[in-house]
């Protein structure tokens, strides 16, 4: 039996010489562990840089930051326990039942901008730009930028040109997901002063299956562009279900007990400046 010979591993010097002569011996399997992107088959858009680091290598371990995080999360947990004795969502039940409207987002200072994420097609290789800043009197926010519909030259994108501002998902203690419970309400009201272009309002609810990850309920926001502010009231029954931008045949009303995000995207057919205070 030649079993001992089979189990005898080659020496390190021999392995390193094999590595250096790899072009001459292409059939030898590389001896280093492949990167995660290769293992899991992540798709990389043409022109995007290769992912060379594993996920844990990107984390910046910091002891004091960790302590602050522990303190913050335990404080949130304690608040959750005490709020349970007060009422739903930390408010007395009478207040919950009598409220006719609820202000969910208002812009009163720099901390209110941190609740929003601004993005554009620059993430997929496009040329649009979008920025969010506070208005002159710190009472409004101003979303502005440039929309460019020139598609990126990656050989696969045919259409491009969007910019969006999206609210962040509320988080409970230890970064658990929380939801907005809007089941007591039936209309979404916005006060905007647009640039005359049509925008969209997207609402997404918590989903369970990975297939439903891109399910979004949409409706249009036609802005006047004038110097006056516009109060827009959109009943939630008007929102229609889309998946990855495509309107679905099988429509369902949006369930308001687990709303996760609200988004305001804009698209255009040519390069334009956009603004939405």
């Amino acid at each position, binding site marked *: 039996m030649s079993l001992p010979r089979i189990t005898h591993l080659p020496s390190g010097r021999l392995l390193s010489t094999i590595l250096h002569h790899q072009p001459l011996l292409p059939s030898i399997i590389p001896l280093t562990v492949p990167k995660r992107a290769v293992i899991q088959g992540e798709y990389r858009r043409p022109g995007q840089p290769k992912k060379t680091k594993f996920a844990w290598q990107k984390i910046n371990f910091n002891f004091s930051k960790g302590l602050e995080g522990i303190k913050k999360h335990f404080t949130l947990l304690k608040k959750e326990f005490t709020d*349970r004795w*007060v009422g*739903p969502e930390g408010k007395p039940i009478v207040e919950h*039942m009598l409220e006719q409207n609820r202000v969910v987002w208002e812009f009163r200072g720099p901390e209110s901008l941190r609740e929003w994420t601004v993005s554009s097609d620059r993430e997929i290789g496009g040329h649009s730009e979008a920025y969010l800043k506070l208005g002159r009197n710190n009472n409004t926010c101003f979303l502005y930028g440039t929309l460019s519909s020139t598609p990126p030259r990656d050989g696969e994108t045919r259409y491009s040109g969007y910019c969006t501002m999206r609210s962040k998902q509320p988080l409970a203690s230890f970064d658990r997901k929380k939801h907005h419970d809007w*089941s007591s309400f039936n209309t979404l009201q916005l006060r905007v002063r647009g640039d005359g272009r049509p925008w969209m309002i997207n609402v997404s609810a918590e*989903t*369970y299956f990975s297939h439903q990850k891109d*399910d979004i309920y949409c409706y249009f926001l036609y802005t006047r562009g004038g110097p006056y502010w516009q109060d827009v009231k959109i009943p939630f029954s008007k929102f229609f279900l889309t998946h990855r931008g495509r309107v679905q045949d099988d429509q369902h009303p949006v*369930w308001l007990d687990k709303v996760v995000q609200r988004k305001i995207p804009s698209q255009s057919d040519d390069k334009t400046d956009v603004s939405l205070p």
Partner: protein
Amino acid sequence: MNPYILAILLFGLGLGTTITFASSHWLLAWMGLEMNTLAIIPLMTQHHHPRAVEATTKYFLTQATAAATLLFASVTNAWLTGQWEIQQITHPLPSTMITLALALKIGLAPLHAWLPEVLQGLDLTTGLILSTWQKLAPFALILQLQPSSSTLLIILGLTSTLIGGWGGLTQTQLRKILAYSSIAHLGWMFLVLQFSPSITLLTLLTYFIMTFSTFLVFKLNESTNINTPATSWAKAPALTALMPLILLSLGGLPPLTGFMPKWLILQELTKQGLA
């Protein structure tokens, strides 16, 4: 839904429960439970809303897990003792596994996490069937089991009572409130199971009547959150006037009917000298 399909599904529901009631062999009992699960799945997804499909999937996975555990436990018992009688589970291992499997089936804490989400995704009629009819078959088996570990039953009962009360505290969705109410009531039933099964049965029947009434009231008002009943006085003043009685009875307040099982359970527990 097509009335013929609806009739077949409801017949399947009834047949499954009846088979479990009438069986003395574990395999037949398991078959009845599976029929119940499979018959209610199309009823849960009849509206095709993503949330209904989500609730159905969660329900199917939990019930299938419980059924598999039950089957495994009964096969283990057959291997260890050589017989399949439902009332002859004497070995502690299969007995514990079966208790836990049935606890998962009915949504007893700490295996309760699926119940509020599943009930929230369903319409009120299907939720009513889930809260009442679907508990009959597992309870029929639970009542026939020889309690191997009184500690396990007391832990399950106490945990359910506490979690049912705590979880329902600040809920605004009526179906979730009823789910936590179900967990709490099941906890009370389990607490007295080993001492007086007849009181468990009485509690179960009382719970069914109260839950049935509650669900029907909410269905009539088309109310799914706590704000809707507050404005239902204009639509149905008499029913709105009686609704607090039904809800307080479900909460177990004397002198309403819901207090009776709690009183009897506490009385029975005090006689046992558990301290």
